[in-house]
């Protein structure tokens, strides 16, 4: 019997862990992500409409709207509110541009003790770095392909 126990491999153990682990509340997570993400988008729409009152087109108002939302995201992260929103809303809190600001500020605040250069300066880009690297690269590749096919991009 003891021999049998000892012969259990790491993979058996992983299987056991998998069966014992409580299932993720997938449906509940989805509903909260929908509600929180939708709500943040509506706030963004409100800000955008505000800028459009001053004669901007919808397209022109997009950039200043993004700036305001990023500012709000950074502020709410500072007060510790945004992390609560992410705990409940999951990707509904993380995917909007306010969550991008949160992903920059939260680690930068946390690693403040490691100094202004390698703490704050570097950790601001823990998540923003990969997003910019792959976002810019993807945009370049897509632009290049379009340019080669259509000649105008």
């Amino acid at each position, binding site marked *: 019997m003891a021999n049998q126990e000892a012969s259990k491999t790491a993979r058996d153990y992983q299987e056991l862990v998998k069966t014992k682990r409580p299932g993720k509340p997938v449906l509940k997570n989805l509903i909260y992500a929908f509600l929180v*993400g939708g709500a*943040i988008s509506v706030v963004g729409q409100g800000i955008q409409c505000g800028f459009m009152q001053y004669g901007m087109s919808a397209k022109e108002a997009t950039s200043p709207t993004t700036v305001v939302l990023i500012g709000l995201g950074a502020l709410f992260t500072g007060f510790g509110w945004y992390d609560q929103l992410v705990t409940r809303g999951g*990707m509904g809190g*993380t995917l*909007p541009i306010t969550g*991008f600001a949160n992903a920059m500020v939260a680690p*930068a605040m946390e690693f*403040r003790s490691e100094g202004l250069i390698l703490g704050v300066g570097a950790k601001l880009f823990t998540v923003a770095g990969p997003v910019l690297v792959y976002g810019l690269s993807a945009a*370049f590749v897509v632009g290049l392909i379009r340019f080669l096919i259509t000649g105008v*991009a």
Partner: protein
Amino acid sequence: MMFFWAFLVGGLICMLAQLTLDLFAVTPAHVLVLFVVLGAVFGGVGLYGKLVSFAGAGATVPLPGFGYTMVSGIGEAVKEKGVLGLLTGGLTAAAGGIKAAVLFGLLAALLFKPKA
């Protein structure tokens, strides 16, 4: 009506991201990268632009909107400046957001202490 579509589309995109996170063994950072790339790809084939035109902030506020912004910026820059636009267009279009994120991010990280 714009607000209704913004809520619906913004919510659905976030729901899709949550589904990706729950179904596959990835971190939120992986999902953010995937969605910004998807935004660039769908922007490139012209689909994301259609979404933006009827859902407004519902499409531009979630991160795929960032990928879309860079691709459409490249399109405009190439029309104006030719091939060089492939290199300058993406960052030019996203400049406001990136600069704001760095400035506000730095400010918040300096002003606030993390909550336990």
